[in-house]
């Protein structure tokens, strides 16, 4: 900000740059290609290599593509000179993604450098290795990162943390759990510098994994002031989100205040809140405030798009945060410590840190402490011109919600001539918002200065601001009017000379402001109207004249003076009609029409004359709009015009005339429509976010988490660790939960119509059975007890329950209830089942060829031993790819042999697929391939051949598709189940969370919420069916006393193993509260014990 003392130093340095340009790299930049670069790269002297590399970088800087040197440059990565290394790294990072194969050549050197004794070398090697982002080496990099995360040097550990997002970007799902684990370790690092970088990694790798934060929350808070500034910004955001998700909003905070307004009855007992309200001195009658503030907090939590798109305004208000719970910052240690540790950050030198800390206090701090954010925010205004604007945008929102916060600091928003136009406009708006009775005098004085500013657009804004101030503080209305009137009389506008367009804008704005103020209370401002009308003669700007003439018509009956002078005025405007602009002409017509239709008795004749004169002129006008309106009015007002001459032209039947009368009555009489307060539709995003500046949700913007959505972390964590033990198979497929989260979006978007259907299904002729079949196993709570048959007899309760949802159905139901419901429920849910897609070949590794595969639920027509897979081949490159074929890795064995003789040898085999002759760029095709897995769970090594090249790929089997659905009904199921006890039965339990999101979404999406049970059942069923080829036999719901208790919920699935048709029965029993993660017990009954166990592991894996 401040250049140093010596003014002469500046001139000296200028001179020296010219003198010493010789010693710099100037010649390299100016003329990078004046020597042959290639031989220099191969030179044995470091200095020559350096020169070559610098020349290459110069070319990069100037936008040339020098990737053709890549192989030569890569060789130099092994150089011992650190400078050469650094330059090579710069080059490598620029081009590595373009030349992945050659980049692989550098890996050995990185591996070697990672073991170097110099931490700088280790750090650079790691940064570059991760930075080149190749899928092929991702596992290697992960190992390296893991090693560096335990490095003795802080710098290396920090680089390890920043390498994690690079790995994450590759989206290799099998690595993600390890990445998150490393993030967790780095978050607990001793060095604050590492913690800062780890926080950044956390927010890009796994921003919703709150359990990592939960474990270290207190420590992270206390270390926060010592973390380096950039890390602080990110960490503050993470801690805020965690605190909201864990504890909810703070009862004493701003965010709650608005709430207390809405539910004031429930709040009355809380005297604490009210005393704080009193202290700060808010006028509770200001409904506007509370409404706005409530909107702000909703926007923070739901995101403005969700919030504003909700169907109706009233809906918005009445829909409280049903899920929101509140906490008090007095007795909540977590909130207290967060506020405590963020408050010294107000003194940070980094403006982003200050704003982030202010955001936390704005949302979480008790209302009487919120004042603390004001001074630091205002100080930020001085930090740099660019940040000035961003800070003002945020202050604007704060000031709108709580004008009193900034009221006494109004002079900070006085405008400087050097401010940019955007800044000026923002400052004006803030000044209007925060003006109070005590400050308005000074603010208006300022505004008067602004009106004379050379920037006329800004001057017009200032005039508009005067009007806004007058609206806000009615006491000032007359003062403001006086000022504005004086402005309209200013000779710059009234002089005969042409006024520039911008000048006219100021005048029009002034008159609009006057109009706006008068509208509040027309009778008391009668004299102002009179004065304006008097000025008509001198005001030349058409738009301004139009508004004044409109006011004549609008207020023609107001007060005493106006009606008296009305006739004169009308004569005047009629006389000048011909010379007006069309805009003014239209308003003149309107005014004449209004006055005429309103007038009774006196002067009617003169009025009619005037009207006829004007209408005649209008009908001969050049402008067709004016002509049209003239004709229209003539017809409409024919009865008022009352001329004999006209009557023969206009054929008016009596009733027609009456109609016209009514019409004109409605059009021109008092339009005292009380404007209902317009719902405020500002888009508000979290303070300090990019979205708040650009006023739309930038990709990646997330509102605050729903309050109190995470539970105690202890039990979930235990489960996660248990999971990790289940071997390589688990590791490779545990993205199942991820895919579920991905697909649930589409699930709920369809859910809206779904629920509507089910609601109206009573009347429907061809009724679809509900997905859920309610049965009477109310005391089945200890789940899966032996005497199932006996329980089935209790029919009466069931019929009673069934009667309610679907009356006509119940009769059919009694006869064949279970099978029917089962069959249809599958059909219903099938539409929403999304089998998961895996990646076989990445376009980055496969020369632009992209191959994805999905396990198909279709049973192969070749052989029962074969699993069908849908593979999608897509050409992402720019060239045609031809002769694509997928083969077994062992291409020596004859593929034809495989399909026939493989029944003897137990090796997984691929039934040969047809060759795809060619794929145009961008074209995609889907092929069905058949694989005989023989129950092998290890990845199958395959090779894709195309364009004469081969690419090894791995096909990962999914045990969930080694079975096929076995339709049966509940009785048969139970019967079979009873024959498979003991060693044929295996059980595991896990935590199921998939429905929690759905439930939350439900709250936002629907005005009436779906039955929670239904959501839970659907969620479990969908997860199961999306990940395995099963048949949903039945869903049994508990009839529990408590509404929310899902304990005893039981889903049955059946299937048979493809190869040997051995039935495989799966029972899923849930326990817990609907809205929280459920404890789910999964039981598999299968004669093939090993298969059953593997299937069980897989199910548990994707459920949790």
């Amino acid at each position, binding site marked *: 900000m*401040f250049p140093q003392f010596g003014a002469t130093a500046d001139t000296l340095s200028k001179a020296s*740059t010219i003198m*010493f340009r010789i010693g710099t*790299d100037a010649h390299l930049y100016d003329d990078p290609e004046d020597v042959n670069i290639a031989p220099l790269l191969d030179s044995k002297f470091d200095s020559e290599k350096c020169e070559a590399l610098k020349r290459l970088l110069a070319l990069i800087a100037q936008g040339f593509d020098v990737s053709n040197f890549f192989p030569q440059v890569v060789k130099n990565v092994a150089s011992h000179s650190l400078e050469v290394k650094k330059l090579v790294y710069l080059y490598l990072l620029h081009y590595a993604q373009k030349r992945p194969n050659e980049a692989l050549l550098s890996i050995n050197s990185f591996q070697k450098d990672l073991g170097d004794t110099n931490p700088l070398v280790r750090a650079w090697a790691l940064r570059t290795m991760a930075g080149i982002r190749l899928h092929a080496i991702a596992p290697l990099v992960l190992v390296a990162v893991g090693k560096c995360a335990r490095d003795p040097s802080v710098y290396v550990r920090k680089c390890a943390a920043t390498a994690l997002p690079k790995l994450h970007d590759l*989206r290799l799902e099998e690595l993600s759990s390890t990445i998150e684990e490393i993030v967790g370790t780095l978050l607990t690092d001793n060095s604050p510098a590492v913690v800062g970088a780890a926080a950044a990694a956390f927010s890009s790798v796994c921003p919703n994994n709150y359990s990592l934060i939960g474990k270290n929350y207190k420590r992270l808070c206390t270390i926060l002031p010592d973390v380096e500034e950039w890390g602080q910004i990110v960490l503050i955001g993470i801690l805020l989100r965690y605190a909201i998700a864990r504890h909810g909003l703070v009862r004493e905070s701003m965010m709650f205040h608005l709430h207390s307004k809405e539910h004031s009855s429930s709040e009355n007992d809380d005297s604490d809140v009210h005393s704080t309200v009193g202290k700060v001195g808010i006028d509770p009658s200001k409904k506007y405030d509370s409404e706005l503030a409530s909107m702000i907090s909703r926007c923070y939590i739901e995101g403005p798009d969700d919030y504003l798109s909700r169907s109706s305004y009233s809906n918005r208000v009445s829909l409280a945060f049903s899920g929101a719970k509140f906490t008090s910052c007095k007795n909540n240690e977590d909130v207290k410590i967060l506020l405590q540790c963020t408050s010294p950050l107000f003194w940070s030198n980094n403006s982003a840190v200050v704003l982030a800390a202010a955001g936390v206090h704005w949302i979480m701090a008790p209302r009487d402490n919120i004042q603390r954010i004001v001074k630091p925010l205002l100080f930020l205004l001085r930090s740099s011109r660019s940040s000035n604007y961003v800070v003002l945008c945020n202050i604007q929102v704060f000031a709108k919600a709580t004008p009193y916060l900034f009221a006494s600091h109004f002079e900070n928003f006085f405008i400087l*001539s050097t401010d*940019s136009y955007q800044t000026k406009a923002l400052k004006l708006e803030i000044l209007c918002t925060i003006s109070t009775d005590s400050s308005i005098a000074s603010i208006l004085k300022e505004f008067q*200065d602004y009106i004379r*500013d050379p920037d006329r657009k800004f001057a017009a804004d200032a005039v508009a601001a005067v009007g806004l101030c007058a609206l806000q503080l009615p006491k000032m209305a007359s003062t403001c009017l006086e000022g504005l009137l004086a402005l309209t009389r200013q000779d710059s506008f009234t002089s005969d000379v042409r006024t520039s367009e911008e000048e006219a804008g100021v005048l029009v704005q002034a008159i609009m402001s006057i109009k706006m103020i008068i509208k509040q209370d027309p009778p008391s401002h009668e004299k102002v109207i009179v004065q304006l009308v008097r000025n008509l003669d001198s005001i030349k700007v058409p738009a301004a004249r139009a508004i004044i003439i409109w006011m004549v018509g609008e207020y023609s009956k107001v007060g005493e003076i106006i009606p008296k002078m009305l006739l004169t005025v009308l004569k005047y405007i009629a006389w000048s009609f011909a010379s007006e602009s069309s805009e003014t002409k239209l308003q003149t017509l309107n005014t004449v029409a209004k006055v005429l239709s309103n007038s009774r008795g006196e002067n009617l004749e003169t009025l009619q004359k005037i009207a006829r004169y004007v209408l005649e002129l209008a009908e001969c006008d050049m402008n067709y709009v004016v002509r049209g309106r003239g004709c229209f009015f003539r017809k409409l007002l024919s009865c008022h015009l009352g001329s004999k001459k006209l009557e023969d032209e206009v054929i008016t039947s009596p009733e027609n005339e009456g109609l016209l009368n009514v019409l004109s009555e409605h059009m021109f009489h008092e339009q005292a429509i009380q404007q209902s307060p317009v719902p405020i539709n500002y888009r508000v995003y979290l303070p300090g976010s990019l979205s708040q500046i650009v006023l739309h949700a930038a990709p990646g913007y997330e509102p605050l988490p729903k309050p109190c959505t995470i539970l105690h972390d202890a039990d979930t964590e235990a489960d996660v660790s248990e999971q990790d033990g289940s071997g390589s198979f688990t590791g490779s497929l545990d993205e199942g939960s991820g895919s579920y989260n991905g697909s649930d979006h589409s699930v709920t978007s369809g859910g809206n119509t779904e629920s509507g259907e089910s609601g109206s299904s009573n009347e429907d002729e061809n009724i679809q059975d509900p997905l859920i079949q309610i049965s009477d196993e109310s005391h089945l709570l200890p789940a899966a007890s032996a005497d199932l048959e006996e329980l089935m007899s209790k029919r009466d309760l069931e019929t009673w329950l069934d009667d309610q949802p679907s009356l006509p159905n119940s009769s059919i139901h009694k006869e064949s209830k279970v099978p029917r419901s089962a069959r249809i429920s599958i059909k219903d849910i099938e539409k929403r089942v999304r089998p998961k897609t895996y990646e076989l070949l990445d376009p980055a590794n496969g020369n632009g060829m992209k191959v994805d595969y999905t396990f198909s639920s279709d049973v192969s027509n070749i052989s029962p031993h074969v699993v069908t897979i849908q593979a999608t081949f897509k050409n992402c490159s720019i060239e045609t790819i031809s002769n694509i074929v997928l083969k077994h890795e062992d291409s020596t064995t004859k593929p034809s042999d495989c399909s026939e003789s493989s029944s003897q040898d137990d090796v997984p085999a691929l039934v040969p697929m047809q060759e795809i002759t060619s794929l145009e760029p961008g074209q995609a095709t889907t092929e069905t391939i058949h694989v005989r897995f023989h129950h092998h769970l290890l990845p199958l090594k395959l090779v894709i051949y195309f364009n004469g090249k081969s690419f090894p790929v791995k096909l990962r089997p999914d045990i969930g598709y080694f079975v096929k659905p076995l339709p049966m009904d509940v009785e048969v199921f139970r019967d079979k189940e009873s024959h498979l006890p003991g060693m044929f039965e295996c059980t595991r339990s896990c935590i199921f969370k998939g429905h929690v999101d759905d439930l939350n979404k439900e709250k936002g999406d629907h005005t009436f919420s779906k039955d929670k049970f239904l959501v839970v059942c659907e969620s479990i069923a969908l997860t199961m069916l999306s990940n395995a080829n099963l048949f949903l036999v039945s869903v049994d719901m508990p009839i529990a006393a408590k509404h929310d208790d899902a304990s005893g919920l039981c889903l049955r699935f059946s299937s048979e193993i493809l190869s040997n048709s051995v039935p495989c029965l799966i029972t899923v029993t849930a326990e817990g509260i609907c809205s929280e993660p459920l404890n789910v017990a999964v039981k598999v009954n299968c004669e093939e014990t090993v298969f059953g166990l593997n299937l069980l592991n897989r199910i548990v894996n994707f459920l949790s």
Partner: protein
Amino acid sequence: QTKLLLFPLSSSCSASFHSSGETQIVSEQAIQREETMLQCIFLLSDSGEVMLEKQLTGNRVDRSICVWFWDQLLSHGDSFKQQPVIASPTHYLFQVVREGITFLACTQVEMPPLMAIEFLCRVADVLSDYLEGLNEDVIKDNFIIVYELLDEMMDNGHPLTTEPNILREMIAPPNIVSKMLSVVTGNSSNVSETLPGATSSCVPWRTTDIKYANNEVYVDLVEEMDAIINRDGILVKCEVFGEVQVNSHITGVPDLALSFVNPSVLDDVRFHPCVRYRPWESYQILSFVPPDGQFKLMSYRVRKLKSIPLYVKPQITSDGGSSRISVMVGIRNDPGKAIDSISVQFQLPSCVSSTDLTANHGVVNVLSNKTCIWSIDRIPKDRAPLLSGTLLLENGLDRLHVFPTFQVGFRVQGVALSGLQIDKLELKVIPNRLYKGFRALTRGGQYEVRS
């Protein structure tokens, strides 16, 4: 059977879209997009030439964004240039302009905009510190250093090392000696072979093993005075923004404590990371382990000051196509030290076609963009400086109805006009001999007089 490709989609990008169809599209973008902060930094010269690009992530940003940017700038003019955050069709851009150099950063995802702006400001600071000023030539001449610095300052879109003193140890600044050396020896390495010790110490801004023969520490109070005098000549706002700049050359790891005589005048403060918060909170004492060399220890703000050192009285009268202007400058409250480098600058209204301005002291310059600069330097003892002359208005206008604002610049050496005074500077472990020096300086900041 139709196939839906559903990628694991972060719920974040669903925020802006509702229907499932759109979600599909976004999810496919999501897989290409990387969730890092800044993606690329461009350095543009004042003619719009891209001097340098530094890609920060694997997802490369094409240069065409700069072409778009420059086209917008040409068509929208100044208001675009002053917009710090721009939403372009493909990226969000952050721009910081310093000495004609535009620092442009791109991102595609939500991130704190102040973080990007603050970072770009730091880059500009570090570069102008390294290159002793910023202009097109020095950046081109030292592009390797700029590259190396950018690489060190940011990794994968997140700031890595931004502390100038540490950067200096990692990448040597191009000083005269090293340049001469490189010419003579042909060896021009400016990359440090070892990691600065500071990166691993508990005071990451200071290297531990520093030795000086003469231990010295200089503390400067540098203040800028902001004031607004309205058209009636009334002072509506007057405040001081100041910095405590320290230049320390002390052996070992010194622990300093700086206290003020009157800390209560401070309205608000901001600190260098080295300052400990606790002692300030309880006793208003600045306790810190200083970085080596020059740094900004603290910045502060003093509000509601009542006296200004200078008065500037503009008078504009207009009549019949021309206006007379006269501006008088004089000392209002003598600060006790000489006021120098006085200048008055104002923008002539656009309706002024030509001027004829003379001053009885100092030099008057009217630039092509109708900016008028009157450099007075010191006020002579015998007479008050007066600028007077006529402004000829454009045809058709007979009087001036918009009035310029006058920006006043000045310097007062040896006085901090906020009244803040340093009490003492203490060193916990005293080396053999420590020389302490204190200075003060006040300058005109946003000092505006309206007419």
